[in-house]
């Protein structure tokens, strides 16, 4: 296995790394997309006023066949329990009433968003589609989703334009709760989030070829959602699916990534996984293995074990596979476990109750990670199983424990997966785990699971409306960066904070109308609020605006900022006059010296006894206090110097 942390950008390119994003961003709205419920979430998703349960099954597609992915979903046999609260759900979320007309305000926002990304092809007639999901996350079994536009882009700093292939607006799914055990056959969802409008922004999978470009792409998209004020804010408002492939591998989707900072790790680990799977494929081919070599023969070896009632143990032989199940494919995880995670999810047998013959090796991954199978197989049993299965030296075997039905099901899935290993990397949707690895969630859904929604008539988009909406597009984040870095030498980080804190309008008001310089406006809008928040004195926009006007009129100067802000916070009713009185006294050199002397005398003896100490501890405060009382436009540095001189004298 390649060490994932050793990969450089060059390595990624050499491996043919490509990645795309599906950014799901909740949209600001007054109601949910297809009903009139308020889009508010429960603080604790375990709370509920009412609860009910359902089962789902796949339906025939338009062409009369089942989507492969959907069949696998059905095999999981989930019972789905819903928690719901009356304030944010109705019979629509319960799938007990057809949809209401979609929220036009949200659709409008979708189009405006598309203009931010310079989309070229718009849905001039919006057609609501259904996208099947059988995991229970949507009570209807399908998500209502529609294309707004196609063929846009976001620019990267290196000049690359990452194409946006599709921009969709859709309803968000329900929130999964009680997700601790993927072997569990009952799943729980809270319906509060179901129906909250989302934008889905999909980038072209071929356009990004290093993790850092991927991160930048995600950040750019996030900036657009923020600067346009179209995106909803808060935890969980944005979730990303990351599609990754390397040469010889295939597209694998990592689902529901919330933290952009984890992208790098996920990319590295997925690249390593795909690379290892390709190696395994090569090795299998070299050993002359063919799909027909793996037979669906499950041997009942229950008699070898003391088992709880209704439990059985079954084994299957995998010819010429010795050593391959034990091959590490992601840090701390071997090929066997990767397969077992899939059979666990589908059949409900925990990975602990799966065993593969490489586990017994001296230095096996499972041993190293103290992740033993709980099927009690010792040296003696191992031999017995080998005899029963009639294995040769080069063969491997797998053992599972569970109900008879589940065992057969699991072994069937494992054999099918091993056959797929001959094709390399299977297309899968995977769930990221906290350690940065990922596990099987479902096979990638095909386009067969998308079909038109007969409940909602198509919505015509007036071409004049499109023109109108285009005018509502403000400055784009990359344009803003260019402008502010040119004018004030701002960094991306500074611009991001202005966007994130929603201070752009004030910033341009301060700089353009009040004619403050950019750095000062930035300090006032970004740095001071943070400083004051740390002091538990959060600043209101009102105070900041008053301060800016005082600065602009020359009533106070920048060195006085802290004291003035404090004063304004404490005296919200103060007039310009009182402020002038307080802060505008002009001192001559002598008066300033006296003031400093007086302030120093107020300090206790110990304070000034040690000069260094005094300097470090009291100086900043002292300087601020003195500056606060003057309006001489003397710099802090000068006052510090004067204080220093006094201390020397003393």
């Amino acid at each position, binding site marked *: 296995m390649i060490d994932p942390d050793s990969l450089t950008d060059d390595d990624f390119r050499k491996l043919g790394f490509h990645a795309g994003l599906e950014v799901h961003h909740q949209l600001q709205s007054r109601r949910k997309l297809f009903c009139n419920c308020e889009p508010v979430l429960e603080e604790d998703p375990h709370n509920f006023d009412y609860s009910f349960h359902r089962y789902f099954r796949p*339906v025939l597609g338009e062409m009369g066949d089942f989507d492969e992915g959907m069949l696998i979903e059905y095999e999981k046999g989930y019972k789905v329990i819903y928690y719901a609260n009356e304030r944010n759900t109705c019979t629509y979320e319960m799938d007990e009433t057809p949809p209401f007309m979609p929220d036009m305000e949200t659709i409008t926002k979708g189009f405006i968003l598309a203009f931010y990304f310079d989309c070229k092809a718009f849905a001039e007639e919006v057609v609501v589609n259904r996208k099947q999901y059988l995991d229970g996350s949507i009570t209807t079994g*399908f998500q209502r989703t529609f294309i707004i536009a196609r*063929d846009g882009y976001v620019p990267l700093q290196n000049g690359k334009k990452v194409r946006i292939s599709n921009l969709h607006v859709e309803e968000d799914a329900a929130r999964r709760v009680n997700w601790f055990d993927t072997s569990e056959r009952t799943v729980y969802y809270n319906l509060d989030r179901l129906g909250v409008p989302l934008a889905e922004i999909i980038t072209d999978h071929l356009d990004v070829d290093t993790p850092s470009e991927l991160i930048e792409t995600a950040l750019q998209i996030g900036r657009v959602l923020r600067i346009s004020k179209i995106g909803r804010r808060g935890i969980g408002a944005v979730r990303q699916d990351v599609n990754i492939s390397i040469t010889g591998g295939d597209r694998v989707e990592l689902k529901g990534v919330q933290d952009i900072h984890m992208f790098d790790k996920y990319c590295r680990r997925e690249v390593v996984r795909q690379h290892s799977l390709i190696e395994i494929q090569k090795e299998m081919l070299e050993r002359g293995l063919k799909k027909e070599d793996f037979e669906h023969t499950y041997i009942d070896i229950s008699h070898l074990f003391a088992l709880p009632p209704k439990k059985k143990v079954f084994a299957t032989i995998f010819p010429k596979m010795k050593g391959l199940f034990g091959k590490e494919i992601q840090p701390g995880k071997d090929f066997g476990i990767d397969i077992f995670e899939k059979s666990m999810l589908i059949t409900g047998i925990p990975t602990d109750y799966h065993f593969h013959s490489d586990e017994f090796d001296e230095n096996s991954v499972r041993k190293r990670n103290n992740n033993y199978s709980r099927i009690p197989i010792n040296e003696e049993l191992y031999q017995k199983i080998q005899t029963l299965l009639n294995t040769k030296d080069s063969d491997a075997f797998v053992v599972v424990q569970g109900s008879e039905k589940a065992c057969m099901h699991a072994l069937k899935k494992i054999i099918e997966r091993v056959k797929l290993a001959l094709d390399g990397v299977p297309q899968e949707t995977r769930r990221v785990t906290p350690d940065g690895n990922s596990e099987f969630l479902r096979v990638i859904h095909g386009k067969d699971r*998308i079909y*038109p929604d007969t409940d909602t008539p*198509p919505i015509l988009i007036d071409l004049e409306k499109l023109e109108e909406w285009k005018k509502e597009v403000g400055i784009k984040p990359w344009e803003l960066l260019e402008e502010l870095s040119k004018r004030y030498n701002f960094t991306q980080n500074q611009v991001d904070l202005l966007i994130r804190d929603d201070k752009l309008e004030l910033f341009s008001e301060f700089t353009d109308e009040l004619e403050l310089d950019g750095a000062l406006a930035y300090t006032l809008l970004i740095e001071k609020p943070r400083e004051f928040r740390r002091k538990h004195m959060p600043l209101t926009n009102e105070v900041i605006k008053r301060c800016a006007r005082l600065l602009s009129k020359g009533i106070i100067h920048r060195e006085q900022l802290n004291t003035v802000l404090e004063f304004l916070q404490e005296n919200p009713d103060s007039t310009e006059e009182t402020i002038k009185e307080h802060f505008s006294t002009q001192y001559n050199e002598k008066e300033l010296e006296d003031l400093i002397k007086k302030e120093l005398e107020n300090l206790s003896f110990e304070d000034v006894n040690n000069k260094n100490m005094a300097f470090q501890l009291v100086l900043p405060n002292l300087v601020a206090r003195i500056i606060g009382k003057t309006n001489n436009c003397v710099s802090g540095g000068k006052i510090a110097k004067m204080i220093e001189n006094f201390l020397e004298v003393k």
Partner: protein
Amino acid sequence: MNDKQTDYEPPEGYRGELLERLVKDKIRTWAEIRITKGEAKYEGILLPRSLNTDDRYVTLKVDTGYNLGVFVDDDTKIEEIGYKKGKYKLPSVDAEFKEDLPNVTLLGTGGTVASRLDYRTGAVIPAFTPEELFSAVPELIPLVNLTPKTLYQILSENFQPQFWVKTAESIAKEIESGADGVIIGHGTDTMAFTGSALSYFLRNLPIPVVIVGSQRSSDRPSSDGPKNILYSARLAGYENFAEVVVCMHGGTSDSYNLIHRATRVRKMHSSRRDAFRTIGDIPLGKVDEKEITWFRDDIKPRGPREDFYLDAKIDDKVGMLYFYPGMKPDLLESMVDLGYHGVVIIGTGLAHVGTDMYTALERCQEEEIPVVMTVEPLFGYTHLRVYETGREMLARGVIEGANMLPSAAYAKLIWALGHTRDINEVKKIIQTPVAGEITPKEGPRGYLLMQGIERGIDEFLKHL
């Protein structure tokens, strides 16, 4: 580009100028097309256009499977770049006849329990082959020998009384050929009407007849149809009862179904799964994954086939009026003029109509047209002896329908008039309980409508 365009067919669903243009360029539905409009390019499959939509747009299915519409003006370029017509194919399911399983016939009349929608036109398309049914609900295979047959492909609002007759005849045929039970797949809207009619038509019914449908169509993964049909198959195949019943979800969860006597059931919600409720009584029984529980002891058991006969004589010149404040007698009078043979009136409260209606009632009396009264509150009996109005109405010959539901009364009057026009005979038939449409009494459980404020309701809601 496909060269063979000899068998060119104009694109389905397109109209007007756009159609002319597509025809001129020989562009077909299901062809891959490219549309160019200034900077914008769209590629995808040209789909048939649904009816009642704007005729200046084309519908495209793009590579991701999504559909969208594009406005076509004079500057829009459309070209065909490929063609592949999808073939509708069915999964093959091996469901062979098993000697030890009960034989159940599923008669399809339309509706959504075992049909699928044509997404392109929104129409219900025949999807009633055993293959489809069994691939959608494979659990049926080991349960019963199920033979699906299609009677109609209609939405239930398009049902006609003569369709009830044909349905009854088909059931009779199944009974004769030894079916252990019959399931009727039916649109939910008028299920209660059909059910009532069948209850009167099928005399000495020897086997269960279960009417079933779905409130979420079977093209949806959350459909209630599969569970409904499974439970119905269990009822029809195995249970010892011989009545016409409706078997639909009892709650919003997929947890249990209720078994309703068809003459007492009513659809009480426009869309919920548990829309069907027994009115004025408790349901006959309940079925879930584990068991079937019967709640009553007046359920008719299976009987000898020899005793069975079909009595499906009808006269469908019957109408129904819903009395409202301000109703004028002219409506009822014009029914007489139009030659109606009988009328059901849903009257207020105890089954009253306003005094304005008296003249029309007199006219009916004169012409010997039976007027059967039922109650607007749905629950409770007609009582025309309590108030003066009622007595006046009785004096004008109206027939009290007791606690018959309007649907049950309507079907019954049609059936009664099929046998006789003699007003006294009709009255006798109407007022004699035939299949539970009139109950001798109503107990405290007959009327339980919760208002959401009852004590303990919060706990109840947590386990729907």
